[in-house]
């Protein structure tokens, strides 16, 4: 569903993403891990068409820049940024209209209730706390029922109830056959549901593997530290792999 081929993103001389290829299939819950500055957010923004890049990205059967690709793609940004002067319910209406959705009202209501925003429908974007802004961002992402969802640090700022709801929603999406790619530093938050992990360092994916590729008794966290481990590994990831 999400197919990245030889993606390179440079800022001047600095290479933020270096020849990255990865694939997230339908019904797959993929996790993007890596230390700060590894290039995860850059990769995500490139996939979502927010950055220019070299290489190819396809969402479903479509090039990521096409309207067909955008129609089936959902994105939750790292920093929530609602429209300050639109209310919560107007955000839902705006997304419904922009995506040309039909019969969306009940879905919107369900989402707002699920994330405890139903009683705040008349609140303006600027009046929301950071956590609530994150919730409205989640609702905006979820309303068009994306077939491929990309979430950048989705749990930051959420209360425990919303964390539980978001995790359960992503699990439902996986079971419905949607592709989910989550970038996070909170490894334990994805430990239950992940299918594939892509570990990034210094702009490259240094390890991609499925859950069944883990050694007996090895956890995702242990895998992560075995790859990114100490200072030596951080300086020379290639050497560590060898």
């Amino acid at each position, binding site marked *: 569903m999400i197919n990245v081929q030889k993606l390179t993103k440079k*800022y*001047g001389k600095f290479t933020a993403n270096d020849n990255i290829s990865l694939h997230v299939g339908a019904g797959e819950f993929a996790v993007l891990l890596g230390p700060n500055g590894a290039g995860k957010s850059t990769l995500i*923004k490139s996939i*979502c*068409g*927010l*950055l*220019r890049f070299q290489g190819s990205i396809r969402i479903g059967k479509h090039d990521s*820049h096409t*309207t*067909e*690709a*955008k*129609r089936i*793609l959902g*994105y939750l*940004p790292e*920093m929530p*940024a609602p*429209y*300050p*002067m*639109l*209310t919560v*319910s*107007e955000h839902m*209406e*705006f*997304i419904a*209209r*922009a*995506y*040309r959705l039909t019969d969306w009202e009940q879905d919107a209501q369900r989402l707002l209730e699920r994330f405890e925003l139903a009683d705040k429908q*008349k609140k*303006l*974007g*600027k009046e929301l706390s950071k956590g609530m802004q994150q919730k409205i961002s989640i609702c*905006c992402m979820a309303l068009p029922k994306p077939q491929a969802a990309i979430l950048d640090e989705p749990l930051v700022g959420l209360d425990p109830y919303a964390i539980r709801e978001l995790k359960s929603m992503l699990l439902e999406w996986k079971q419905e056959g949607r592709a989910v790619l989550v970038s996070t530093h909170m490894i334990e938050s994805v430990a239950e549901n992940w299918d594939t992990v892509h570990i990034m360092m210094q702009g490259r994916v240094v390890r991609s593997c499925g859950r069944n590729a883990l050694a007996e008794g090895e956890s995702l966290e242990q895998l992560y530290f075995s790859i990114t481990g100490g200072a030596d590994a951080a300086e020379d990831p290639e050497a560590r792999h060898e």
Partner: protein
Amino acid sequence: MNSLLYIVTREMKNTLLELVRKPARLILVLLLVAFLVAMILVSMFTGSMMEEYADLFLLKGIFFAFLLLFTLIAVRSGFTAGNTFFGMEDVNLLFVSPVSAGKILVYGLARSMSRAFLMGFFILFQTNSLRLFGVGFGGVLIFFFVFMLSLVLSFLCSVAIYRRTNGSERRKVTAAAIIAAILVPAAVYAVLLLLRGDPPMQILARLVDAPSVRGIPVAGWGMEGAMALITGDWGTAVIFIGLIVFFIAVLAVFIANGRSEYYEDVLAATETAFERRRALERNVNASAALDGKKVRVAKTGVGGIGASAIFYSHIRESLRENRFGMFNRITVIYLLVAVAASFFTRENGSCVLPLQIIMWMQVIYIGQGHGVKELYMHFIYLIPEPPFRKLLWSNLETAVRSLVEGILVFGVAGAILRDPPLLIIGAVVTYVLFSLLLIAVNCLFLRWTGMNVNAGILFLLYYLAAIFIMLPGAIPAVIMGYTVAGDAGITLALGILSLWELIAALVCFALSRGILHSCDMPAGRLR
């Protein structure tokens, strides 16, 4: 080495190194310097050809109004969050360090000086305009220097007001009363001159020479000091510049030696500035997001379908942001400027002068439109619609706003000047199409640069481009204006200019078609 000196020198060194490491920025700085030098040379050349100069009191009035505006903004902030010349890094690292608060204040003042330097930099580009008054580059430097000093004093006034009035409504009322008492005599004198029915220019000439205006702190002193330096009246210059310097010292001592440290007085403003900067880095709608103004939500809902939903959401936001719908604070500023310009030229002027002034202001304010802001949020990139359609719909609100604004501003200006309706319509059309052209130039620049440049540099490039793109239309328009006499000539000139604006805007829009596909969404612009 002293820690403060270390910070200052290291920051300067790193800034220079960054300039060298980023050739694009270096080229731009060199271009800027070249532009400045060319301007000075041109002004020297054209200066010698002039037979008669404009009256100096007009320049005096403009400089006074300019200083008064900056001072009042600073004073206003003193009543709310205060002002700051510190960054959050100073609060976190310097304020808690064992460096004396007095030394840190001196460091803060040096920072405020550099801020004033940047804010006043545009004065240097007025060399050509000031030549009309017989003021050479030396005079421009004097204006620049006095502006910097006045700005530092207004920053200090702001902090001092905050320090004295914070948390006490009674003190706020007292401070407001003192400020009113300073301004009222000048206002009363202006009203008396108006009631006497003196010609506008005579009123202005008398006003700028009145003791009640010259004596107004910061603005009056700055105006008088600058003009005295330019005309070689050294005694007056020493008095007024001396007053500014003296009060800078007095307020600095007052702030540094109060009963409590001044850190608290600048903390709120520093935090607000920091939050604003952070919010801007992730969302340019920061000003709306950060103001604490309570907004009443009455009518709700967003219209449109597909890309047009962007336009309707902007309209909804606009109506919420401003009590008067499409008219906002900028409209009021435009209206005041247009009324003032029309009033002072009502005997033999036309609405070309207000149009000219407001078009210059429009270059700065066009970025306030929702269309430009939209590019800083992810929604427009993800909405499944053709990119060019999204771009057009997202800028339509600015065009509609310009039309409404143009009708009001030039309607009023035209009425004061008794311009024929066709000329007023010409001014409105020129204004609206200029807004469109600026949006198009902005999009084109974002398209060319991939939005991967510093906001300041982008603005400067855009500013210069706006001038050069207008030239092919402005030159024949000016020729037409001089060839055909009277209002007909001016109306025809505006027609030519409008036509050029339309063509140039369409070309720029066509060239920036792929903007949403071939640009990086801007982030962290205020580097």
